[in-house]
């Protein structure tokens, strides 16, 4: 891919944006947030701070990415 032409290739840019949108949506909704919830359930049994902090990190980042996508799609 010639990097110099990337600014003029609107089809490629829009395709990249669509792929990124879907990837971010999938990663946050089917990996980050569920993993955060699983870790939270694990913390309920083991009561370890390390597991709780990891769970909070996963959930927060998942929600952050979803909110970011939402705001980016709404505010243009």
């Amino acid at each position, binding site marked *: 891919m010639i*990097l*110099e032409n990337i600014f003029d290739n*609107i089809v490629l*840019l829009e395709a990249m*944006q669509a792929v990124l949108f879907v990837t971010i949506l999938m990663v946050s909704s089917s990996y*980050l947030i569920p993993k955060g919830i699983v870790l939270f359930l694990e913390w309920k049994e083991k009561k370890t701070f*390390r597991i709780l902090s990891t769970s909070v990190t996963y959930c927060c980042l998942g929600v952050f990415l979803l909110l970011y996508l939402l705001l*980016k799609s709404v505010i243009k």
Partner: protein
Amino acid sequence: MRKILTFLILIVPFLTYANSSEEVRKKYAEQINNAFQLQSLGKTTLAYYAFRDGYQLALKNGESVTKLATLEKLFGWYRTYGYSCGLLTKPSGITTEYTNRHLKKTYDFDPHQQKIIRDFLCGVGFLVSGVFCIVINPPLLGRFGITFVASGFKYIYESVDDMIEDYQEKKQRLTELNTIEQKFNATLN
């Protein structure tokens, strides 16, 4: 014979009037042309006064306001985007001048585009390092890794969004120029 003489005497003012009008027209056309030439040499203030004088003279002599408005728009466009499009040798220096593409001759991208590319590459770097962190040591580095991945996604998405915006701006500017050109051609025809 007397009738012919009377007719000639009556027609002389009309003939002289037509000639003087044509001369005035030539004069203000030259002034406006001079304004564009001065602007291309980087003499912004002189160009402005030349255009203003030509415009006012044309207006006084009953030139069409639509034609003049189109010319004025073209002159404004020339001053705003002329340097960034490579039409002028020096920047016009007016307050509304478009300055994003000043370094185009030195670099492949203008500063704004360079920033977008930097953001994009930074995002890719974040993403790759995040994935490495998660793969190498999930319990300890996993948390940082996930943060890196999320930041990477954010940076990449934002830079692609900026690239699309940049393209649309460029397209809009070209459309603007085409519209002015069409109007200009329409007034000439």
